């Protein structure tokens, strides 16, 4: 009896001590906590609070009932989503474009960065870098104007050349879906390769020059050096960017796919991606159920994909994993 009372008292004392030490910790760290409070609030409101919204995917959305009182409807929203006739095209486009972007995003900027590092005239290298970086600074709205200037039926540069120089019939680009996969892939490369090549170029510049000297003494030519030293040295950067890209494989660049086709319905079969689909469901058709289900699918599959890719990379070479 006495023992149990003593034990209880002891436990209580420990608990109080624990609490005290927790508050003491808070007090000791108050200045650091004060520093992160604005950021933490921001993250809670715009990043963590929306996570709760993911459960809307399993509910019948009805704002009048309030968030917690909306009725559960199981997987009905998902049934709706996958019965939608467009969903196959949308998934195909999203995955297809992103897979191509991952490949071109690894090859083109690396090739450009290697090329820049090989140039003998360093001022030239810096100038080229500046020019190639410029597209990154333009918004997709501006880019839409540029694309319009090139592909406009009546006045665009391309039709000018086709009918003016070659005497062929002008192409109605904005009504011809078959050209757009190529246009969008090239446009995506155009907008991002300068930016990414700077990251790779910096990585190449950080490579120990003794490695090249040693390889050169062993008789390796320049191109061989690129293959056995440069590329392997920047592999971690390539892998890191690829992991991040794989995790975003269901997230299409909304700015590009929404703005550049200028709302042309004829192009929808090749320009409709998950993000534009979700947007249209949310804001145009008011089909919130489908929008939440598609959004849920996008977020959760994306998260799983990052974890899986990272796990695989970890297995192969743990030094190159993201976390």
């Amino acid at each position, binding site marked *: 009896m006495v023992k149990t009372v003593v034990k209880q008292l002891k436990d209580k004392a420990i608990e109080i001590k624990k609490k005290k030490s927790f508050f003491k*910790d808070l007090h*000791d*760290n108050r*200045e*650091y906590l*004060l520093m*992160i409070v604005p*950021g*933490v609030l*921001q*993250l809670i*409101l*715009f*990043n963590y*609070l*929306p*996570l709760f*919204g993911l459960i*809307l995917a399993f509910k019948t959305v009805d704002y009048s009932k309030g968030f917690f009182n909306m009725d559960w409807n199981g997987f009905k929203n998902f049934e709706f989503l996958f019965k939608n006739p467009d969903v196959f095209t949308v998934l195909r486009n999203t995955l297809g474009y992103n897979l191509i972007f991952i490949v071109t995003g690894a090859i083109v900027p690396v090739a450009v960065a290697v*090329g820049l*590092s090989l*140039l*003998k005239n*360093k001022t030239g290298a810096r100038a*080229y*870098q*500046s*020019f*190639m970086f*410029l597209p990154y*600074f*333009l*918004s997709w709205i*501006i*880019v*839409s*104007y*540029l694309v319009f*200037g*090139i592909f406009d039926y009546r*006045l665009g*540069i391309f039709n000018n050349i086709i009918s003016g120089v070659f005497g062929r019939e002008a192409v109605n680009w904005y009504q011809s879906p078959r050209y757009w996969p190529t246009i969008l892939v090239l446009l995506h490369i155009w907008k991002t390769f300068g930016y990414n090549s700077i*990251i790779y170029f*910096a990585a190449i510049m950080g490579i120990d020059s003794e490695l*090249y*000297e040693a390889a*050169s003494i062993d008789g390796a030519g320049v191109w061989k*050096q690129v293959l056995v030293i440069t590329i392997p040295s920047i592999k971690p950067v390539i892998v890191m960017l690829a992991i991040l890209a794989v995790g975003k494989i269901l997230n299409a660049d909304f700015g590009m796919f929404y*703005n550049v086709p*200028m709302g042309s319905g004829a192009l929808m079969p090749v320009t409709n991606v998950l*993000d534009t689909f979700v*947007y249209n469901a*949310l804001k145009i058709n008011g089909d*919130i159920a489908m*929008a*939440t289900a598609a*959004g849920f699918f996008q*977020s959760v599959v994306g*998260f799983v994909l*990052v974890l899986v890719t990272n796990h695989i990379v970890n297995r192969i070479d743990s030094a190159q994993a993201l976390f």
Partner: protein
Amino acid sequence: MAKGSLRINEISNAANVLLNVIFILLSFLCIYPILLVIGTSFAEETYLNVVGYKAFPKVISLDAYKYVLSNAKPITNAYIVTIITTLTGTVLSTLMIALYAYAIVQQGFKYRRFFTFFIFFTMLFNGGIVPWYIVCTQVLKIQNTLIALVWPYLINAWYVMVMKTFYNTTVPSAIIEAAKIDGASELKTFFRIVFPIAIPGLATIALFMTLRYWNDWYLPFMLTSDPKLSNIQMYLKRILNNLQELLNSSSAAMQAGSMLAVVPREGARMAICALAVGPIVLAYPFFQRFFVKGLTIGSVKG
């Protein structure tokens, strides 16, 4: 810069020339579309209607600009919105990012691991636009306010990570320790000692945020319907989809139109675009090296 260039084997002169030609072509491809828009904005309308868009038009006229600026109200308003949101957004977000990153690199901060994960996690997983949209419109109710064009972008996990790396690599912990021994508080240490040292890193973050706010069309597009809250990008987006809006925007414009022999429809569209892209192109040569530096910091893993 020098490290990579010290290699003993250099490429042959022929290969160097070939590489230069390729890079000149690539550079040209990157700037040509911009020249096309700017050139067209200076082309005379009847000439333009015959020959199409031209980067270097032969018949030049300022009519498109006169026409657009005859009713300068919408574009001035759009510029004001952009400037206000860009300034406040850049200052607030840079401060928020700087403080957050500083706290999570301090060894003395007991919860730094937790809060590092707290922000890193947002890079891996997010709720998508629907819950985000519902939080903005149903919980925070910021739709159709100027705040909606600033608030949602204030913190950015990627830039916090960049800044964290920057502190780790360039702010010597000995200085911070010394300040603490002298009895300075954390906040005082940060603003008096760390802040001045970290200015190059902070400037980079500030530039990236400036670009983000300047180029943003997404927030006004998603969260506003009032044309008065259109920033420059949103205004451009509306004109792109509906040229008529520009042409009919006021009686003043119609008057200006009637005084000109030809209403510069196509020229006006490109003049608006040139007015929006102008500041970026003009500022670009001065700022791009800071961006390059920022990217270089960011590429260090950690």
